[in-house]
Protein backbone atom coordinates (compact mmCIF):
# COMPACT_ATOMS: atom_id res chain seq x y z
CA UNK A 1 0.00 0.00 0.00
CA UNK A 2 1.34 3.48 -0.69
CA UNK A 3 3.26 4.64 2.36
CA UNK A 4 2.32 8.34 2.46
CA UNK A 5 -0.91 10.02 1.42
CA UNK A 6 -0.17 13.73 1.20
CA UNK A 7 -3.75 14.73 0.52
CA UNK A 8 -5.31 12.95 3.50
CA UNK A 9 -2.04 13.46 5.47
CA UNK A 10 -1.88 9.82 6.59
CA UNK A 11 1.04 7.42 6.85
CA UNK A 12 0.49 3.64 7.04
CA UNK A 13 3.41 1.25 7.34
CA UNK A 14 2.96 -2.52 6.85
CA UNK A 15 5.75 -4.47 8.49
CA UNK A 16 5.86 -8.25 8.09
CA UNK A 17 7.68 -10.58 10.51
CA UNK A 18 9.07 -13.39 8.35
CA UNK A 19 11.11 -16.45 9.22
CA UNK A 20 11.12 -20.24 9.57
CA UNK A 21 8.47 -22.11 11.62
CA UNK A 22 8.43 -21.56 15.41
CA UNK A 23 11.27 -18.97 15.26
CA UNK A 24 9.27 -16.60 17.51
CA UNK A 25 7.53 -14.27 15.06
CA UNK A 26 4.21 -14.41 16.88
CA UNK A 27 5.98 -14.09 20.26
CA UNK A 28 7.49 -10.77 18.98
CA UNK A 29 4.02 -9.43 18.29
CA UNK A 30 2.59 -10.72 21.55
CA UNK A 31 5.36 -8.91 23.51
CA UNK A 32 4.75 -5.67 21.60
CA UNK A 33 0.99 -6.06 22.14
CA UNK A 34 1.64 -6.26 25.89
CA UNK A 35 3.73 -3.06 25.92
CA UNK A 36 1.44 -0.80 23.93
CA UNK A 37 -0.95 1.47 25.85
CA UNK A 38 -4.58 0.38 25.59
CA UNK A 39 -5.91 3.00 23.17
CA UNK A 40 -2.75 2.88 21.03
CA UNK A 41 -3.46 -0.61 19.73
CA UNK A 42 -6.27 -2.50 18.06
CA UNK A 43 -7.30 -6.12 18.64
CA UNK A 44 -4.57 -8.60 17.89
CA UNK A 45 -5.96 -11.00 15.28
CA UNK A 46 -4.39 -14.46 15.28
CA UNK A 47 -5.40 -16.92 12.58
CA UNK A 48 -3.74 -19.94 14.03
CA UNK A 49 -4.29 -23.66 14.42
CA UNK A 50 -5.43 -25.22 17.73
CA UNK A 51 -1.81 -25.85 18.43
CA UNK A 52 -1.21 -22.12 18.02
CA UNK A 53 0.76 -22.49 14.83
CA UNK A 54 0.22 -19.35 12.75
CA UNK A 55 -1.91 -20.59 9.92
CA UNK A 56 -2.54 -17.46 7.94
CA UNK A 57 -1.25 -14.46 9.88
CA UNK A 58 -1.22 -12.59 13.18
CA UNK A 59 -2.13 -8.92 12.82
CA UNK A 60 -1.48 -6.06 15.28
CA UNK A 61 -2.54 -2.53 14.29
CA UNK A 62 -0.74 0.35 16.13
CA UNK A 63 -2.05 3.92 16.24
CA UNK A 64 0.82 6.43 16.83
CA UNK A 65 -1.25 9.62 16.66
CA UNK A 66 -0.35 12.72 14.65
CA UNK A 67 3.38 13.18 13.97
CA UNK A 68 4.53 16.27 12.03
CA UNK A 69 0.91 16.69 11.06
CA UNK A 70 0.52 13.15 9.71
CA UNK A 71 -1.81 10.51 11.23
CA UNK A 72 0.67 7.64 11.60
CA UNK A 73 -0.41 3.98 11.74
CA UNK A 74 1.67 0.85 11.86
CA UNK A 75 0.39 -2.62 10.86
CA UNK A 76 2.49 -5.52 12.12
CA UNK A 77 1.94 -8.95 10.51
CA UNK A 78 3.49 -12.35 11.06
CA UNK A 79 3.46 -15.17 8.51
CA UNK A 80 3.16 -18.94 9.03
CA UNK A 81 6.69 -20.31 9.11
CA UNK A 82 6.10 -23.88 7.95
CA UNK A 83 7.10 -24.53 4.35
CA UNK A 84 3.68 -26.17 3.98
CA UNK A 85 1.85 -22.85 4.24
CA UNK A 86 3.74 -21.08 1.44
CA UNK A 87 0.49 -20.16 -0.33
CA UNK A 88 -0.86 -18.14 2.60
CA UNK A 89 2.59 -16.81 3.51
CA UNK A 90 2.95 -15.35 0.03
CA UNK A 91 -0.38 -13.52 0.39
CA UNK A 92 0.63 -11.81 3.62
CA UNK A 93 3.73 -10.28 1.95
CA UNK A 94 1.49 -8.31 -0.39
CA UNK A 95 2.25 -4.58 -0.13
CA UNK A 96 4.85 -4.96 2.65
CA UNK A 97 6.75 -1.71 3.36
CA UNK A 98 9.29 -3.38 5.64
CA UNK A 99 10.36 -6.90 6.69
CA UNK A 100 11.76 -8.23 9.98
CA UNK A 101 13.39 -11.61 9.45
CA UNK A 102 13.15 -13.52 12.72
CA UNK A 103 15.82 -16.21 12.61
CA UNK A 104 16.03 -19.09 15.06
CA UNK A 105 19.47 -18.92 16.73
CA UNK A 106 19.53 -22.68 17.43
CA UNK A 107 22.38 -24.24 15.52
CA UNK A 108 20.19 -27.12 14.31
CA UNK A 109 17.80 -24.60 12.71
CA UNK A 110 20.44 -22.97 10.46
CA UNK A 111 19.21 -24.70 7.29
CA UNK A 112 15.61 -23.74 8.03
CA UNK A 113 16.74 -20.11 8.41
CA UNK A 114 18.52 -20.21 5.05
CA UNK A 115 15.61 -21.91 3.33
CA UNK A 116 13.21 -19.32 4.73
CA UNK A 117 15.48 -16.45 3.58
CA UNK A 118 15.50 -17.79 0.03
CA UNK A 119 11.73 -18.30 0.23
CA UNK A 120 11.36 -14.66 1.33
CA UNK A 121 13.32 -13.48 -1.69
CA UNK A 122 11.29 -15.64 -4.08
CA UNK A 123 7.94 -14.52 -2.62
CA UNK A 124 8.97 -10.83 -2.65
CA UNK A 125 9.98 -11.19 -6.28
CA UNK A 126 6.58 -12.65 -7.10
CA UNK A 127 5.02 -9.47 -5.74
CA UNK A 128 7.42 -7.45 -7.90
CA UNK A 129 9.28 -6.16 -4.82
CA UNK A 130 13.06 -6.04 -5.28
CA UNK A 131 14.60 -7.49 -2.13
CA UNK A 132 17.40 -4.90 -2.34
CA UNK A 133 14.85 -2.06 -2.19
CA UNK A 134 12.62 -3.18 0.69
CA UNK A 135 13.76 -2.01 4.18
CA UNK A 136 14.72 -5.17 6.06
CA UNK A 137 16.39 -6.09 9.33
CA UNK A 138 17.51 -9.38 10.91
CA UNK A 139 16.60 -10.60 14.41
CA UNK A 140 18.43 -13.61 15.87
CA UNK A 141 15.82 -14.84 18.35
CA UNK A 142 16.08 -17.31 21.26
CA UNK A 143 19.47 -15.96 22.37
CA UNK A 144 18.30 -16.83 25.88
CA UNK A 145 18.78 -20.58 25.18
CA UNK A 146 21.83 -22.40 26.56
CA UNK A 147 25.10 -21.37 24.87
CA UNK A 148 25.87 -24.77 23.43
CA UNK A 149 22.58 -24.97 21.57
CA UNK A 150 22.75 -21.63 19.79
CA UNK A 151 25.05 -19.63 17.46
CA UNK A 152 26.18 -16.12 18.46
CA UNK A 153 24.77 -13.12 16.54
CA UNK A 154 28.24 -12.73 14.98
CA UNK A 155 28.22 -16.30 13.63
CA UNK A 156 24.65 -15.90 12.43
CA UNK A 157 25.61 -12.66 10.69
CA UNK A 158 28.28 -14.49 8.73
CA UNK A 159 25.81 -17.20 7.67
CA UNK A 160 22.68 -15.16 7.01
CA UNK A 161 23.44 -11.44 6.65
CA UNK A 162 24.33 -11.30 2.92
CA UNK A 163 23.13 -7.71 2.56
CA UNK A 164 24.85 -6.34 5.70
CA UNK A 165 21.55 -5.10 7.12
CA UNK A 166 21.24 -4.20 10.83
CA UNK A 167 20.93 -7.36 12.96
CA UNK A 168 19.91 -7.76 16.59
CA UNK A 169 20.21 -10.63 19.05
CA UNK A 170 16.91 -11.09 20.86
CA UNK A 171 14.89 -13.19 23.28
CA UNK A 172 11.30 -12.44 22.27
CA UNK A 173 9.90 -14.39 25.22
CA UNK A 174 11.50 -11.90 27.66
CA UNK A 175 11.12 -8.99 25.19
CA UNK A 176 14.87 -8.37 24.95
CA UNK A 177 15.68 -6.89 21.49
CA UNK A 178 12.03 -6.84 20.35
CA UNK A 179 11.51 -3.07 20.33
CA UNK A 180 15.07 -2.50 19.16
CA UNK A 181 14.29 -4.50 16.01
CA UNK A 182 10.96 -2.72 15.50
CA UNK A 183 12.60 0.72 15.89
CA UNK A 184 15.34 -0.19 13.39
CA UNK A 185 12.98 -1.37 10.68
CA UNK A 186 10.58 1.57 11.25
CA UNK A 187 13.42 4.07 10.78
CA UNK A 188 14.53 2.39 7.56
CA UNK A 189 10.93 2.34 6.28
CA UNK A 190 10.44 6.04 7.03
CA UNK A 191 13.81 6.96 5.52
CA UNK A 192 12.48 5.78 2.16
CA UNK A 193 9.48 8.00 2.74
CA UNK A 194 10.30 10.95 0.54
CA UNK A 195 11.45 8.97 -2.50
CA UNK A 196 8.18 7.36 -3.31
CA UNK A 197 6.01 10.32 -2.37
CA UNK A 198 3.97 11.65 -5.31
CA UNK A 199 4.56 15.33 -6.31
CA UNK B 1 -41.78 -10.87 -0.53
CA UNK B 2 -41.98 -14.61 -0.01
CA UNK B 3 -45.36 -14.30 1.79
CA UNK B 4 -46.84 -13.05 -1.45
CA UNK B 5 -45.30 -16.04 -3.26
CA UNK B 6 -46.51 -18.49 -0.63
CA UNK B 7 -50.10 -17.21 -1.08
CA UNK B 8 -49.77 -18.01 -4.79
CA UNK B 9 -48.42 -21.50 -3.95
CA UNK B 10 -51.30 -22.12 -1.53
CA UNK B 11 -53.74 -21.99 -4.40
CA UNK B 12 -51.87 -25.02 -5.88
CA UNK B 13 -51.56 -26.95 -2.58
CA UNK B 14 -55.32 -26.49 -2.06
CA UNK B 15 -55.94 -28.95 -4.88
CA UNK B 16 -56.80 -32.37 -3.40
CA UNK B 17 -53.91 -34.81 -3.46
CA UNK B 18 -51.19 -32.16 -3.69
CA UNK B 19 -48.73 -32.58 -0.80
CA UNK B 20 -46.55 -29.57 -1.49
CA UNK B 21 -45.52 -26.84 -3.94
CA UNK B 22 -42.43 -24.73 -4.07
CA UNK B 23 -40.59 -22.20 -6.17
CA UNK B 24 -36.99 -23.24 -6.82
CA UNK B 25 -33.99 -21.39 -8.33
CA UNK B 26 -33.28 -23.71 -11.26
CA UNK B 27 -29.63 -22.73 -11.53
CA UNK B 28 -28.67 -23.32 -7.88
CA UNK B 29 -31.30 -25.83 -6.86
CA UNK B 30 -32.21 -23.72 -3.85
CA UNK B 31 -35.65 -23.09 -2.42
CA UNK B 32 -37.15 -19.65 -3.03
CA UNK B 33 -40.57 -20.17 -1.49
CA UNK B 34 -42.39 -23.24 -0.31
CA UNK B 35 -45.75 -24.45 0.89
CA UNK B 36 -45.22 -28.00 2.03
CA UNK B 37 -47.04 -30.50 4.20
CA UNK B 38 -45.33 -32.35 6.98
CA UNK B 39 -42.66 -34.85 6.08
CA UNK B 40 -41.71 -33.32 2.72
CA UNK B 41 -37.92 -32.62 2.60
CA UNK B 42 -37.97 -29.26 0.81
CA UNK B 43 -34.24 -28.82 0.30
CA UNK B 44 -33.73 -32.24 -1.17
CA UNK B 45 -36.79 -31.85 -3.41
CA UNK B 46 -35.61 -28.47 -4.65
CA UNK B 47 -32.06 -29.64 -5.44
CA UNK B 48 -33.16 -32.86 -7.10
CA UNK B 49 -36.02 -31.26 -9.05
CA UNK B 50 -33.73 -28.53 -10.30
CA UNK B 51 -31.10 -31.05 -11.35
CA UNK B 52 -33.80 -33.12 -13.04
CA UNK B 53 -35.23 -30.11 -14.83
CA UNK B 54 -31.75 -29.16 -15.97
CA UNK B 55 -31.06 -32.55 -17.51
CA UNK B 56 -34.54 -32.84 -19.03
CA UNK B 57 -34.22 -29.38 -20.52
CA UNK B 58 -30.94 -30.34 -22.17
CA UNK B 59 -32.45 -33.58 -23.46
CA UNK B 60 -35.48 -31.77 -24.90
CA UNK B 61 -33.29 -29.21 -26.61
CA UNK B 62 -31.06 -31.95 -28.01
CA UNK B 63 -34.01 -33.74 -29.56
CA UNK B 64 -35.25 -30.57 -31.17
CA UNK B 65 -38.64 -30.52 -29.53
CA UNK B 66 -37.92 -27.16 -27.90
CA UNK B 67 -37.66 -26.40 -24.16
CA UNK B 68 -39.87 -28.26 -21.73
CA UNK B 69 -43.11 -26.50 -20.74
CA UNK B 70 -44.59 -29.10 -18.39
CA UNK B 71 -42.93 -32.16 -16.80
CA UNK B 72 -45.04 -34.91 -15.26
CA UNK B 73 -43.14 -37.74 -13.46
CA UNK B 74 -45.59 -40.52 -12.58
CA UNK B 75 -44.36 -42.73 -9.67
CA UNK B 76 -45.77 -45.65 -7.66
CA UNK B 77 -47.10 -43.58 -4.74
CA UNK B 78 -47.41 -40.14 -6.34
CA UNK B 79 -46.19 -37.72 -8.97
CA UNK B 80 -43.76 -34.88 -9.48
CA UNK B 81 -44.89 -31.92 -11.57
CA UNK B 82 -42.48 -29.27 -12.86
CA UNK B 83 -43.33 -25.99 -14.65
CA UNK B 84 -40.77 -23.28 -15.59
CA UNK B 85 -41.78 -19.93 -14.09
CA UNK B 86 -39.38 -17.71 -16.08
CA UNK B 87 -36.02 -16.06 -15.14
CA UNK B 88 -34.52 -19.37 -14.01
CA UNK B 89 -37.34 -20.11 -11.54
CA UNK B 90 -39.11 -23.45 -11.40
CA UNK B 91 -42.51 -24.34 -9.91
CA UNK B 92 -42.30 -27.82 -8.34
CA UNK B 93 -45.30 -29.71 -7.05
CA UNK B 94 -45.36 -33.11 -5.33
CA UNK B 95 -48.58 -35.09 -5.17
CA UNK B 96 -49.81 -38.46 -3.93
CA UNK B 97 -51.39 -41.05 -6.26
CA UNK B 98 -55.07 -39.83 -6.04
CA UNK B 99 -54.42 -36.29 -7.20
CA UNK B 100 -56.80 -34.52 -9.66
CA UNK B 101 -54.04 -34.01 -12.22
CA UNK B 102 -55.98 -31.68 -14.57
CA UNK B 103 -56.88 -29.29 -11.76
CA UNK B 104 -53.33 -29.35 -10.37
CA UNK B 105 -51.94 -28.57 -13.82
CA UNK B 106 -54.41 -25.71 -14.33
CA UNK B 107 -53.61 -24.13 -10.92
CA UNK B 108 -49.87 -24.49 -11.58
CA UNK B 109 -50.09 -22.72 -14.96
CA UNK B 110 -52.22 -19.93 -13.42
CA UNK B 111 -49.73 -19.54 -10.52
CA UNK B 112 -46.80 -19.36 -12.91
CA UNK B 113 -48.54 -16.61 -14.90
CA UNK B 114 -48.91 -14.59 -11.68
CA UNK B 115 -45.29 -15.06 -10.60
CA UNK B 116 -43.60 -14.19 -13.93
Amino acid sequence: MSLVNFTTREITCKIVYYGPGRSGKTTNLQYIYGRVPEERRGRMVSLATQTDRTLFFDFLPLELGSISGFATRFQLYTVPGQVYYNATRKLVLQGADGVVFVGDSQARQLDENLESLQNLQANLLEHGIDVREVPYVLQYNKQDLPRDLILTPQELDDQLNFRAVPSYGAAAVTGQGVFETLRAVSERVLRKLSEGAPA
Amino acid sequence: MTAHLVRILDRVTRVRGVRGAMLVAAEDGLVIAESLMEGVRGNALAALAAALAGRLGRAAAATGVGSATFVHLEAARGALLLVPAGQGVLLVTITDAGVNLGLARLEMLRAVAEVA
Partner: protein
Amino acid sequence: MRRARVIEPWLREPLERFLGETGARLALLMTPAGQVLAQYGFVRAVDVMAAAALGAGIAASTGELARMLEERSFRALNHQSPRHGIFLAQFDSPRGALLALVVYGPDSSIGLVQLFFEELVGDLAQAAPPASRDAPALAADFERDLNGSLATLFR
Protein backbone atom coordinates in the same frame (compact mmCIF):
# COMPACT_ATOMS: atom_id res chain seq x y z
CA MET C 1 -15.68 -44.56 -11.31
CA ARG C 2 -14.44 -41.61 -9.31
CA ARG C 3 -11.25 -42.67 -7.46
CA ALA C 4 -10.67 -40.57 -4.32
CA ARG C 5 -7.36 -40.94 -2.42
CA VAL C 6 -7.59 -41.22 1.35
CA ILE C 7 -5.16 -41.61 4.25
CA GLU C 8 -7.55 -43.97 6.07
CA PRO C 9 -9.74 -46.45 4.13
CA TRP C 10 -13.03 -45.65 5.89
CA LEU C 11 -13.09 -42.22 4.28
CA ARG C 12 -13.17 -43.46 0.70
CA GLU C 13 -16.70 -44.90 0.31
CA PRO C 14 -18.67 -41.92 1.73
CA LEU C 15 -16.54 -39.47 -0.23
CA GLU C 16 -16.93 -41.32 -3.50
CA ARG C 17 -20.71 -41.49 -3.07
CA PHE C 18 -20.73 -37.71 -2.50
CA LEU C 19 -18.63 -37.19 -5.62
CA GLY C 20 -20.99 -39.40 -7.66
CA GLU C 21 -24.09 -37.56 -6.52
CA THR C 22 -22.78 -34.02 -6.91
CA GLY C 23 -20.48 -34.47 -9.89
CA ALA C 24 -17.91 -32.28 -8.04
CA ARG C 25 -14.62 -31.57 -9.87
CA LEU C 26 -12.31 -31.31 -6.80
CA ALA C 27 -12.78 -32.33 -3.18
CA LEU C 28 -10.60 -32.06 -0.08
CA LEU C 29 -11.18 -33.29 3.46
CA MET C 30 -8.76 -31.78 6.00
CA THR C 31 -8.22 -30.71 9.60
CA PRO C 32 -8.62 -26.95 10.39
CA ALA C 33 -4.84 -26.87 10.40
CA GLY C 34 -4.80 -27.87 6.77
CA GLN C 35 -3.68 -31.47 7.27
CA VAL C 36 -5.27 -33.36 4.38
CA LEU C 37 -7.23 -36.56 5.13
CA ALA C 38 -8.67 -37.22 1.70
CA GLN C 39 -8.51 -35.64 -1.73
CA TYR C 40 -10.01 -36.05 -5.16
CA GLY C 41 -9.09 -34.40 -8.44
CA PHE C 42 -5.72 -32.88 -7.42
CA VAL C 43 -2.78 -33.97 -9.55
CA ARG C 44 0.18 -32.50 -7.61
CA ALA C 45 0.96 -32.47 -3.91
CA VAL C 46 1.88 -28.76 -4.23
CA ASP C 47 -1.64 -27.94 -5.38
CA VAL C 48 -3.09 -29.83 -2.43
CA MET C 49 -0.78 -27.91 -0.07
CA ALA C 50 -1.83 -24.60 -1.53
CA ALA C 51 -5.55 -25.46 -1.50
CA ALA C 52 -5.31 -26.83 2.06
CA ALA C 53 -3.43 -23.81 3.39
CA LEU C 54 -5.76 -21.36 1.66
CA GLY C 55 -8.91 -23.27 2.69
CA ALA C 56 -7.72 -23.42 6.30
CA GLY C 57 -6.72 -19.73 6.12
CA ILE C 58 -10.17 -18.76 4.88
CA ALA C 59 -11.90 -20.83 7.53
CA ALA C 60 -9.68 -19.27 10.21
CA SER C 61 -10.33 -15.74 8.88
CA THR C 62 -14.10 -16.17 8.80
CA GLY C 63 -13.93 -17.84 12.20
CA GLU C 64 -12.19 -14.74 13.58
CA LEU C 65 -14.74 -12.53 11.83
CA ALA C 66 -17.53 -14.54 13.45
CA ARG C 67 -15.91 -14.20 16.87
CA MET C 68 -15.76 -10.40 16.41
CA LEU C 69 -19.50 -10.46 15.71
CA GLU C 70 -20.02 -12.74 18.73
CA GLU C 71 -21.47 -15.13 16.17
CA ARG C 72 -21.13 -18.90 16.05
CA SER C 73 -18.60 -19.90 13.39
CA PHE C 74 -20.01 -20.00 9.85
CA ARG C 75 -21.37 -23.40 8.79
CA ALA C 76 -20.50 -23.13 5.08
CA LEU C 77 -19.16 -20.64 2.59
CA ASN C 78 -20.03 -20.64 -1.10
CA HIS C 79 -18.28 -18.68 -3.80
CA GLN C 80 -20.18 -18.83 -7.12
CA SER C 81 -18.43 -17.82 -10.33
CA PRO C 82 -19.49 -18.49 -13.91
CA ARG C 83 -17.59 -21.71 -14.49
CA HIS C 84 -17.01 -22.95 -10.95
CA GLY C 85 -18.51 -22.89 -7.52
CA ILE C 86 -16.37 -23.28 -4.38
CA PHE C 87 -17.99 -24.74 -1.30
CA LEU C 88 -16.07 -24.62 2.02
CA ALA C 89 -17.77 -26.10 5.07
CA GLN C 90 -16.77 -26.97 8.63
CA PHE C 91 -18.30 -30.01 10.28
CA ASP C 92 -17.82 -32.24 13.30
CA SER C 93 -16.61 -35.77 12.87
CA PRO C 94 -15.48 -38.54 15.19
CA ARG C 95 -11.98 -37.23 14.48
CA GLY C 96 -12.87 -33.71 15.68
CA ALA C 97 -13.74 -30.69 13.62
CA LEU C 98 -12.98 -31.10 9.93
CA LEU C 99 -13.09 -28.94 6.84
CA ALA C 100 -14.46 -29.87 3.41
CA LEU C 101 -13.43 -27.99 0.30
CA VAL C 102 -15.47 -28.79 -2.82
CA VAL C 103 -15.20 -27.33 -6.31
CA TYR C 104 -18.11 -28.04 -8.68
CA GLY C 105 -18.81 -27.11 -12.26
CA PRO C 106 -21.93 -25.80 -14.06
CA ASP C 107 -23.33 -29.33 -14.33
CA SER C 108 -23.82 -29.39 -10.59
CA SER C 109 -25.35 -26.83 -8.23
CA ILE C 110 -24.88 -25.51 -4.72
CA GLY C 111 -28.20 -27.04 -3.85
CA LEU C 112 -27.03 -30.53 -4.76
CA VAL C 113 -23.65 -30.07 -3.05
CA GLN C 114 -25.26 -28.85 0.16
CA LEU C 115 -27.83 -31.59 0.02
CA PHE C 116 -25.33 -34.37 -0.37
CA PHE C 117 -22.80 -32.73 1.96
CA GLU C 118 -25.28 -33.24 4.80
CA GLU C 119 -25.42 -36.89 3.78
CA LEU C 120 -21.62 -37.09 3.59
CA VAL C 121 -21.32 -35.80 7.15
CA GLY C 122 -23.79 -38.45 8.26
CA ASP C 123 -22.03 -41.24 6.35
CA LEU C 124 -18.63 -40.26 7.72
CA ALA C 125 -19.96 -40.29 11.27
CA GLN C 126 -21.12 -43.91 10.85
CA ALA C 127 -18.16 -45.13 8.84
CA ALA C 128 -15.48 -43.91 11.27
CA PRO C 129 -13.98 -46.81 13.32
CA PRO C 130 -13.83 -46.10 17.06
CA ALA C 131 -11.15 -43.44 17.22
CA SER C 132 -7.97 -44.61 18.82
CA ARG C 133 -7.24 -41.23 20.23
CA ASP C 134 -3.92 -40.81 18.38
CA ALA C 135 -1.46 -38.67 20.15
CA PRO C 136 -2.31 -34.97 19.67
CA ALA C 137 -0.19 -33.36 16.92
CA LEU C 138 1.16 -30.97 19.55
CA ALA C 139 3.98 -33.19 20.64
CA ALA C 140 5.03 -34.53 17.27
CA ASP C 141 6.89 -32.21 14.90
CA PHE C 142 3.94 -30.40 13.44
CA GLU C 143 5.30 -29.97 9.95
CA ARG C 144 6.42 -33.58 9.64
CA ASP C 145 2.85 -34.51 10.46
CA LEU C 146 1.40 -32.32 7.72
CA ASN C 147 3.78 -33.65 5.11
CA GLY C 148 3.26 -37.21 6.32
CA SER C 149 -0.42 -37.21 5.29
CA LEU C 150 0.54 -35.73 1.93
CA ALA C 151 3.04 -38.48 1.35
CA THR C 152 0.40 -41.19 1.92
CA LEU C 153 -2.06 -39.48 -0.43
CA PHE C 154 0.44 -39.29 -3.24
CA ARG C 155 2.20 -42.64 -2.70
